[in-house]
């Protein structure tokens, strides 16, 4: 049996929640699915206050924004399916959803969405040094989830690899949770993230060792991490033999950036490009956040890794455009909203990092206008090709 919905939103992080809220507000029936126990995505581990303007929840902590969005979605009667994994998007905008029901029983549903908004976020990049699969080596994001969401320390003595904002902030939060951060190792000659975050952890006495990398995770008799071997790197980021030294630790956290999760848009053959500024391969989209395939929208990190505030605005644009395409909003109403939202997105893309993203986004939109022009309808299936049989 196939269930029918106006809009199916995949991923209940900031982008997916915002998209659901906008579409539901306009009157569309929305199904929001997420594989986790709770909606809110990464917002619930963001215990710090947001920067920026009032419109972007400045001064509010991430988890409070998450709570607010979840409440709003619930009050708008968004149908939220948790512990539900979108296993694929199939020809004809059909979303396969494996849902865990009471008692742990798994059931597969097929939901046809007149519009499908893909907001699957990002995943962490790995660094493949010797021993990188040992228990005790993990992504910095995973370590953050452990302390901030599950209130479990990943270990006692931690070495962090990568000094971008994630590496810096998570190091600080691990210390707040009672872990000992022994060193922050950075392959580049200088710190990647904001000076304000770096200063905080330097003041707390954590050495930030630049121009170094981890070459090996040492294991104890059970194979669990007992130390990190670090070495100095040359100007091509190659470890220099003879400079190795060992830091005894039980956990290695890797903060080597994020990449968009694009499996679902790839399944739908959405046109994609490689854009390092946004973290890798991403689906192209127009100013409605619609991909090259008609009715398939994207929002948030799955279309380029940025901040939660950008993800929310992109979600709102996608939700508004999807509602408009289904006739819930007039072109004039939707146009006004989308214009305002794009202005807000662009205002978030300022500063040296933001400028690069602003330029990259402009190029991507132009690429779409010139090469894709209009989102194309689904490849027709069901009919016999060339009249066979």
């Amino acid at each position, binding site marked *: 049996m196939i269930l029918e919905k106006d809009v199916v939103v995949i991923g209940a992080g900031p982008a997916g929640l915002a998209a659901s809220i906008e579409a539901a507000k306009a009157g569309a029936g929305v199904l929001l699915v997420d594989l986790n126990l709770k909606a809110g995505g990464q917002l619930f581990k963001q215990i710090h206050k947001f920067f920026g303007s009032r419109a972007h929840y400045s001064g509010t902590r991430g988890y409070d924004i998450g709570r607010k969005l979840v409440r709003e979605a619930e009050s708008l009667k968004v149908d939220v399916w948790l512990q539900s994994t979108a296993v694929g998007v199939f*020809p004809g905008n059909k979303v*396969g959803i494996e849902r865990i029901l009471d008692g742990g029983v798994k059931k597969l549903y097929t939901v046809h969405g007149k519009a499908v908004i893909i907001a699957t976020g990002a995943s962490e990049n790995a660094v493949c040094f010797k021993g990188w699969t040992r228990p005790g080596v993990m992504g910095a994001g995973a370590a953050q989830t452990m302390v901030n969401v599950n209130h479990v320390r990943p270990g006692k003595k931690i070495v962090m690899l990568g000094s971008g904002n994630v590496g810096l902030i998570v190091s600080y939060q691990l210390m707040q949770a009672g872990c000992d951060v022994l060193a922050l190792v950075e392959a580049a000659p200088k710190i990647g993230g904001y000076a304000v975050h770096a200063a905080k952890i330097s003041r707390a006495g954590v050495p930030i060792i630049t121009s170094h990398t981890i070459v090996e995770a040492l294991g104890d008799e059970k194979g669990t991490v007992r130390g990190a071997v670090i070495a100095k790197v040359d100007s091509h980021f190659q470890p220099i033999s003879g400079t190795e030294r060992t830091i005894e630790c039980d956990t290695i956290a890797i903060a080597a950036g994020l990449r968009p999760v694009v499996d679902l848009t790839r*399944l739908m053959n959405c046109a994609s490009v490689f854009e390092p500024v946004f973290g890798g391969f991403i689906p192209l989209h127009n100013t409605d956040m619609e991909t090259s395939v008609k009715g398939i929208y994207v929002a948030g990190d799955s279309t380029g890794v940025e901040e939660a505030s950008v993800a929310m605005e992109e979600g709102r644009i996608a939700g508004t455009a999807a509602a408009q395409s289904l006739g819930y909003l007039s072109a004039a109403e939707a146009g006004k909203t989308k214009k305002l939202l794009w202005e807000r997105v662009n205002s978030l893309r300022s500063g040296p990092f933001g400028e690069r993203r602003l330029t990259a986004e402009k190029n991507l939109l132009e690429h779409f206008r010139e090469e894709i022009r209009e989102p194309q309808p689904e*490849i027709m299936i069901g009919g016999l*090709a060339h009249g*066979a*049989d």
Partner: protein
Amino acid sequence: MIYDVTVIGAGAIGTSVAYHLCKKGFSVALIDRGDIASGSSSHCDAVALISDKAPGLDTKMGDASIRHYRELAESFSYDFEYDRKGCLYVCETEEELAAASSYAKRQAADGYDMKIVDAKTMREMEPYLADDLLGGIWTPGDIAVCPYKVCFAFVEEGKKLGLKVYPYTHISRIRLSANRMVEAVETDAGDILTKRVINCAGVWAPDVGKLVGLDIPIQPRKGMNLISEQTKRIVWHKVMEFGYMMSKFESINFRRNVSSLVEEYNVAFNIEYTKADNILLGGYRGFRGFDVRSELEAMQAIAERGIRFYPCLKGINCIRSYAGVRPYVKDHLPVVSAVDEVPGFYIAAGHEGDGICLSPITGKLMAQLVAGETTDFDIRRLRFSRFTEAQRTA
């Protein structure tokens, strides 16, 4: 230099044809617009069977090919995972068992090692099979191979004999001389001068045919499989339902007691283990153009049919599904033939689901054809001219 032969398409058929031509001493270029085995030959299942062939030429070619696989496995240094796992066809009803018996009898009379096994023997061979099945056909000589490794094996062994490979090379034109003889293949890597061209492009063979003004009636037919997580061994042979015959030869028409979903997607159960301990579960065939995206309902239908025969599959996770297109010809026979209208142009394509099975024998026969030798057996029924003759009679 001028090549003796240029083979277009580096799948199971093209690589075998190229290898067998090298073996005969021809200078050979092998071209593909992608990598080796990047089309149907890496989006299929992994068996070579005689037990799914129609009696007669079909079985004869299958048998010769399987024998040839064995020789190749022994002589090649490249391992393509030759595995003589045997094939078991299982029957659900008395009616199926009766049809299976007469089929097996006919094949045995032709000299093939094929026999009926009763329910008890079958369950000893495959203890996880559903316990209500009545019996089946056992063909011990049927084999499995890794399809893409077969292609790589032919290429690597061919290279030892001087084979030149042009991957990621796009053809813009096939140049003919004034008297319509093949002269050169024009590509984005430059002109390849050649005396002959062999079109081994499978489902894409019609595109290559167009370059010399031919209309080759091959159509893409989609096939889909599921892959399970790695699991303990629950299956020891290739196992299929006798109803599989139905989806292959529409002429044999059994009414199966199946759900509307299984019926709609024309799903026929078949299962095999892989070397990596995953299970490959099939299958469905349908006409969807070149769209190889997985279809959720087809996946569900395949799983449903699989669980009917192996109830324990219910507790095993599916980790992936994949689909590919098979080169379908309406009369279910491949084309292995010269083309009278264009001297020097040959076709070896249209094997539908039998390309992996018939790869070695097709290469051998084509090399004999090109060398002007007598072919191992009469392949007049595989001639390209059968289509134009059929048109004329119509």
